[in-house]
């Protein structure tokens, strides 16, 4: 029992960077833009968050810097895909190349460094009074650092935003049928820009969670493909923020299961267990594409640039 609880709690922590990135990509894709630069934006956020953390020792400033760095990457993507109508797949890949280079370049002198003690203390788990006393649920969900809680809140907030507000409805319309939304005098480009930027900020936050809390020291390519798993998780979650919670924590569990199994002396190589998240991602994609249900259909205008004059 104790072992299960500690495993599940660790899965939530490991799933938190995935959650932020997945939520960011959901918001981006809901605006009809497929940004494959998640990995790049996460890396940009991770390195900037870490740098500002080292320089200022201020947790809020470092998180803010990470979000701004992610939004900066997303800004490049937005200008190119929305205003210049470039191919979204290639632009996203270029952003990943750029972000990887950016973090490798900037992080060169940070390699191996560890974040200041006061930041570590700040990002220590604190149990939520009352909630953390609930048996099983308490220690699994309510005994974490505040960014994990922020993850819950962000997911729920985005869920309400998407499904329960006028603006969320407009956003979904932009992703499904921009021409109709345009006719209803929704400012398409404004919606696209804002949500791509917000998505990038969330990806940056996901990256910063890795460098500031999860690892927490700098190593090159700290995301190790998590950005791509987040892109797949968006499909897994069917573009739904609530389901993103489930998917992220599930994959967080897969991420750490290797270490756990190795500790038990189970006769299987660690490298095969390391393949699990990637293999399961493929499996999930195949199963989802098999179902072909309406709930699992992407926003209809995903990947198509909108140009009023060309309708």
């Amino acid at each position: 029992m104790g072992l299960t609880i500690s495993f599940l709690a660790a899965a939530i922590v490991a799933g938190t960077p995935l959650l932020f990135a997945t939520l960011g990509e959901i918001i981006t894709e809901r605006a009809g833009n497929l940004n494959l630069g998640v990995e790049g934006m996460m890396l940009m956020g991770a390195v900037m968050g870490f740098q500002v953390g080292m320089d200022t020792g201020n947790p809020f400033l470092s998180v803010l810097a990470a979000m701004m760095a992610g939004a900066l990457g997303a800004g490049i993507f937005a200008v190119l895909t929305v205003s210049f109508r470039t191919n979204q797949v290639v632009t996203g890949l270029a952003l990943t190349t750029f972000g990887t280079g950016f973090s490798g370049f900037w992080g060169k002198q940070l390699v191996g460094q560890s974040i200041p003690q006061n930041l570590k203390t700040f990002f220590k788990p604190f149990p939520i009074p009352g909630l953390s006393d609930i048996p099983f649920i308490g220690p699994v969900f309510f005994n974490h650092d505040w960014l994990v809680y922020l993850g819950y809140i962000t997911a729920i907030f985005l869920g309400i935003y998407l499904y329960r507000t006028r603006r969320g409805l407009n956003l979904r319309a932009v992703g499904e049928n921009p021409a109709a939304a345009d006719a209803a005098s929704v400012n398409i480009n404004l919606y696209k820009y804002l949500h791509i930027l917000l998505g990038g900020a969330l990806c940056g936050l996901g990256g910063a969670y890795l460098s500031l809390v999860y690892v927490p020291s700098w190593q090159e390519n700290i995301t190790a493909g998590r950005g791509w798993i987040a892109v797949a998780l968006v499909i897994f979650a069917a573009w739904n923020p609530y389901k993103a919670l489930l998917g992220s924590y599930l994959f967080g569990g897969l991420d750490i299961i290797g270490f756990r199994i190795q500790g038990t002396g189970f006769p299987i190589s660690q490298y095969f267990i390391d393949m699990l998240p990637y293999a399961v991602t493929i499996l999930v994609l195949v199963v989802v594409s098999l179902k072909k249900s309406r709930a699992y259909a992407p926003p209809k205008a995903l990947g198509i640039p909108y140009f009023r004059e060309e309708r």
Partner: protein
Amino acid sequence: MLFKIVKRSEISKEKSICIRILAVLLALITSGIFILLLDLNPLEVYWAMVQGAFGSKYRIEQTIIKAIPLIITSLGIAVAFKMKFWNIGGEGQIIMGAFAASFFALRFPDLPRPLLLSLMIIAAVVAGGLWALIPAFFKAQFDTNETIVTLMLNYIALKWITYLQYGPWRDPAAQGFPKIPNFSENAILPDLLGVHIGWVIALALVFIMYIFMNHSKLGFEIAVLGESENTARYAGVNIKKTILLALAISGGLCGLTGMIEASAVCNTLSVEVTGGVGFTAIVTTWLGALSAPIILVVSFLFAALIQAGSFIQTAFGIPAAAAQILEGMILFFVLGSEFFVRYKLTKNGGFSLNLKKEVS
């Protein structure tokens, strides 16, 4: 709005090339500002980069050696991209090709050289092709998103050879250092004019793929399928078969890259066998407009950029990742410039002014 966006009906080739060159220049200027922020003189750095890539016979050879895998991989990726199948699994396909070639190199080190090398090439092409057939099969059968599947397969392939390198294939003679034994002399591609023979293969493939893409039935079907699936269906193209064949070719070429790199460059299999070629090749493929001759030129220039990147790392202490930033930057600007190839901006208001005149 001050400007109105108007679609160009046609654009001269010179003009479109001019716009792209301008884009590269802008990318260089923007990156130059970045270099300035590092308290370095951008002109000096750029000149050093030119020197690093072309400054001596040895450096030119190094540039060519770096261009070979880029050219072959880009040719492979171009086949998939032409179909709008976003194969970003070049890394994994290269790795699996290298793995299959290494299997023969390590298992039969004493076979006669031509026989062993041929076996390695065939094995690599088949392995790379099969690895690419996985996403192709799911795409053809269930319309599964290929971008993610190809990418995930990269990681799985990497973990697989990491396992081999740290496990069953580990060289016991390497004194605890985790490496796979070096290939025998017979498993290493020979040199021709100072550079391993891969350059001949690459040049031949540029020619072959040009003919294939422009003058063969399958090449035409791939292009039609990329333009519109419905058109392809009405034209009687067997869509599933075309997807599978195209990806077998795409992955096969990437696999061949793996064999060449393992045999001629690394002389063994290692987790670093790709050197990120699978990703860089996506950029060169796109900038090469999916056309074999342009891919040749762009790949060579990018190889020069990479070679220059490692040179400035030693000369100026600038991390090699700077070359990656420059890559991204060039790509951003060239992508953006395509907008100006397709559209032109005209001053808004001219039209309405004329209208007013007519009314009065």
